[in-house]
């Protein structure tokens, strides 16, 4: 039988790849894991390996751009299809209803390369059970890396044999499961292997699952229920009129709880609520934030900066700066430079823990938190210590734009050594930022407010920003963190120090 090789999901923000080079020709015999082609995304080039041994049949030509999940080529597994079913008798089939014929072929599914910087993934959920009959492309598991969650489609049709258990962490290339290949789906006949089985079986997930009939669509809309919240009982999981009529907007489960809520007071306002499934990105964010709170000794130190010197400098030169470099002079470059200088003096703040060792970094890769429509992302300014003000400003603009457009690659978001977050843009006066692991510290910027401060015994009005530094007390001591923040403050209040390094 032919295995369809699809474009693997190579990263969160990558939706298509270009075939840079076929390393094998149409009709070539290829070995398992042999590199057969080079693919290019807008960020990186990576290699496509054969997912089984057999004869290569090229579907997409060199130079073609192919969306994630599309078939690029097929591999005809030679011999296997014609071999008698050796393992048939020893294969217990758990689904009593039908006995798909084992072909003797076993597809070993390994962790795909999901991005350049990702070395391991965790099996978060098995959606199919050991011994289940799975169809090619059925989503069988949810897998997550430290950046994102993705779905794992079955690479063959057959009986699932789970190797890696839920919550197990595997390196790229690690064995996840085996699929004992069966010939054809149980229900459909003859040559329909190229077409999905069109289910006499309403449990089957098809492309039409969750599609409401015209009458059902109207009823659901009027009830304010999304079709994704309704389990369709029609052919192929379609939502029938009856399904829609029976659908309830509030799940019955929560009704018991509502006894504890205060009694409803009759009022004019509507009291509707709605439930939405958390996206995998949101789930990942949620899990990681909680784990940081649990697994680090995080605390926050505060200080305040008189922004007048920086603001004066900025207003004096911002036009010239803009004219010369084509990018505006913002505060971020001052903060990044001040932070880099301070990090040099207090290397622990720029370090991270790896098991029993502490990794000190000679470079400053500064992660900057950017709010995007899909959630918070933290792209990295590399070697910020060696960049000039204008280089930092243009990098900030570039990363923020890509973030807003959802175009940031995983590489661009991986590997910072220190983070800066600016809650001030939303008007935050003071906050305690959460660490971005495995980093050990994060600087929180806030809004600039004119406050009465005492200078040389006199009360004067100055533009003041509060600064917060959250740090991991496991490797950063109070003396270092507080001194670090004081250094940042000093350099911002007297930018000349930035030049002189004093």
């Amino acid at each position, binding site marked *: 039988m032919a295995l369809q090789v699809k474009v693997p999901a190579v990263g969160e923000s990558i939706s298509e790849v270009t075939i840079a080079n076929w390393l094998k020709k149409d009709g070539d015999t290829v070995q398992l894991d042999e590199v057969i082609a080079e693919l290019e995304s807008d960020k990186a080039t990576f290699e496509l390996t054969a997912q089984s041994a057999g004869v290569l049949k090229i579907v997409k030509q060199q130079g073609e751009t192919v969306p994630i999940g599309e078939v690029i080529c097929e591999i005809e597994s030679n011999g296997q299809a014609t071999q008698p079913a050796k393992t048939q008798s020893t294969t217990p089939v758990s689904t009593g209803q039908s006995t798909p014929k084992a072909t003797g072929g076993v597809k070993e599914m390994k962790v795909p390369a999901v991005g350049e910087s990702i070395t391991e993934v965790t099996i978060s959920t098995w959606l199919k059970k050991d011994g289940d009959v799975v169809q090619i492309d059925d989503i069988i598991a949810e897998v997550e890396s430290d950046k994102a969650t993705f779905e794992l489609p079955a690479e063959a049709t057959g009986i699932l044999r789970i190797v890696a258990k839920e919550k197990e962490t595997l390196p790229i290339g690690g064995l996840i499961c085996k699929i004992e290949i069966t010939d054809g789906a149980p229900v*459909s006949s*003859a*040559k*329909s292997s*190229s*077409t*999905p089985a*069109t289910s006499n079986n309403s449990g089957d997930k*098809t*492309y*039409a699952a969750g*599609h409401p*009939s*015209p009458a059902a*669509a*109207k009823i659901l*809309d*009027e009830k304010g229920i999304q079709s994704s919240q309704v389990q369709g009982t029609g*052919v192929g999981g*379609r939502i029938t009129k009856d399904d829609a009529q029976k659908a309830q907007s509030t799940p019955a489960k929560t009704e018991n709880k509502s006894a504890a809520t205060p009694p409803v007071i009759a009022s004019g306002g509507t009291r509707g609520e709605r439930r939405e499934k958390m996206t995998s990105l949101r789930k990942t964010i949620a899990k990681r934030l909680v784990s940081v709170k649990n697994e680090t000794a995080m605390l926050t130190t505060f200080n305040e900066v008189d922004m007048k010197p920086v603001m004066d400098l900025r207003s004096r030169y911002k036009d010239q700066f803009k004219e010369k470099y084509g990018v505006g002079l913002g505060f971020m470059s001052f903060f990044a430079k001040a932070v880099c200088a301070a990090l040099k003096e207090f290397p622990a703040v720029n370090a991270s823990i790896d098991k029993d060792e502490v990794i000190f970094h000679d470079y400053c890769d500064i992660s900057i938190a950017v709010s995007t429509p899909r959630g918070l992302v933290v792209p990295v300014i590399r070697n910020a210590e060696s960049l000039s003000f204008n280089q930092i400003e243009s990098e900030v603009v570039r990363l923020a734009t890509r973030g807003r457009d959802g175009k940031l690659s995983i590489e661009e978001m991986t590997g910072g050594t220190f983070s800066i977050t600016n809650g001030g843009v939303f008007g935050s006066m003071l906050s305690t930022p959460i660490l971005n692991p495995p980093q050990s510290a994060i600087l929180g910027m806030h809004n600039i407010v004119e406050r009465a401060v005492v200078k040389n015994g006199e009360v004067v009005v100055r533009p003041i920003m509060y600064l917060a530094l959250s740090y991991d007390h496991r490797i950063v001591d109070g003396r270092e963190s507080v001194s670090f923040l004081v250094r940042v403050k000093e350099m911002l209040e007297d930018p000349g120090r930035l030049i002189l390094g004093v």
Partner: protein
Amino acid sequence: MQYNVTVIGSGPGGYVAAIRCAQLGFKTAIIEKYDTLGGTCLNVGCIPSKALLDSSEHFINAKEHFAEHGIDIPSPKVNIGQMIKRKGDVVKANVDGIAFLMKKNKIDVHKGIGSFVDKNTIKVTSADGKETTLTTEKVIIATGSKPTPLPFAPFDKKRIISSTEALELKEVPKHMIVIGGGVIGMELGSVYARIGSKVTVVEFLDSLIPTMDGTLGKELQKIAKKMGMDLFLGHKVTAVESKGNEVIVKAEPKNGGNAIELKGDYCLVSIGRRPYTDGLGLDKVGIDTVKGQIPVDDHLKTKVDNIYAIGDVVRGAMLAHKAEEEGVFVAEKLAGQKPHIHYQLIPGVVYTWPEVASVGYTEEQLKEQGRAYKVGSFPYKALGRARASMDTDGLVKILADKQSDEILGVHIIGARAADMIAAGVTAMEFRASAEDVARMSHAHPTYMEAVKEACLAATANRAIHM
């Protein structure tokens, strides 16, 4: 007089909207400027043209096919006066039916030209100049469309005619020149071709019924030629001149070449229709038309909060059944319901004989989208029922998604295509796959078997009877 809803225009969009409004409990009025209800569709469009199409079809059967069926009759002759009269009777029965439905649903009919005074007030001026003022909470504009004239040759309604006059001719034209090979031109052209007129079609684009799937246009072209029509595709008309009893049409190939000159006794101009809003007083409520159309949002609401518009005056295909769906849609919206219209699944139909009908994406559109698709087609020739009836022209073509097998388009040319397309709409509304339809029992012997066979062909190239 005070109403919840006032509908302006009583075509298939307007009267259906009015009935649905009444069903939902609104006090409803409908305004019509002509003497009879039903608009273009019932009076000078769908219904009368179908009446003549059937008459001409009977004639051609009597003339050409009866002998083969074993029915010997003297050579039949066309009595155009009777044909037009019967058509008139059919129209009358239908428009009377609408009048009855208005009464049954307690909808007030106001005859005259409806014109906005302000957004809640409409003045109706009847033919004798009497004015009535209606106050209304909501308004549905359903004023339809009119045939578009050629800019250099306005309708003289005697020799240079629109579809309206073509349905009222007193004689069988000797040579009818049809400008525009779209739906209306082909329908009326084929009527006159069958009752003995020489028919010449001049079309600017390179195919007939150019908005439909290319296969259908090509098939229709073959059938038209078989019928004896002359076709000049890719020709641009440069002049139309009426000289008493003769019309001269000049055209030239748009890609260069020799100009042609056609002489006929009638010239049917069927180059399209334009939205009709004359006398509606849209300026009184601040609505500006765009290319003649009334701009509306997804709920068919105009920029004025209580005024909606449906049918040919708004964007989308100019089809009676599209207007009807929109009429129901707006009425239900007004009642706080949440109806849907899948515009992609509104079928297009051409009532030539054989008929042409289509729903979903055309092959050209799928190519343009770069979508991977499969094609399955099945000819009428291979169908027992079609052979029995001697209606062997045509085919069914199914387009399905290459991976999922979901049906993406159904295109039929052949006898009963217009009725058969409903099955395609049903299948697509439920997102059926080609194999789903192929696995459903279809009665034998029927024309619908061609749909099943084409679905088998699309599923995995396994039609049975081919």
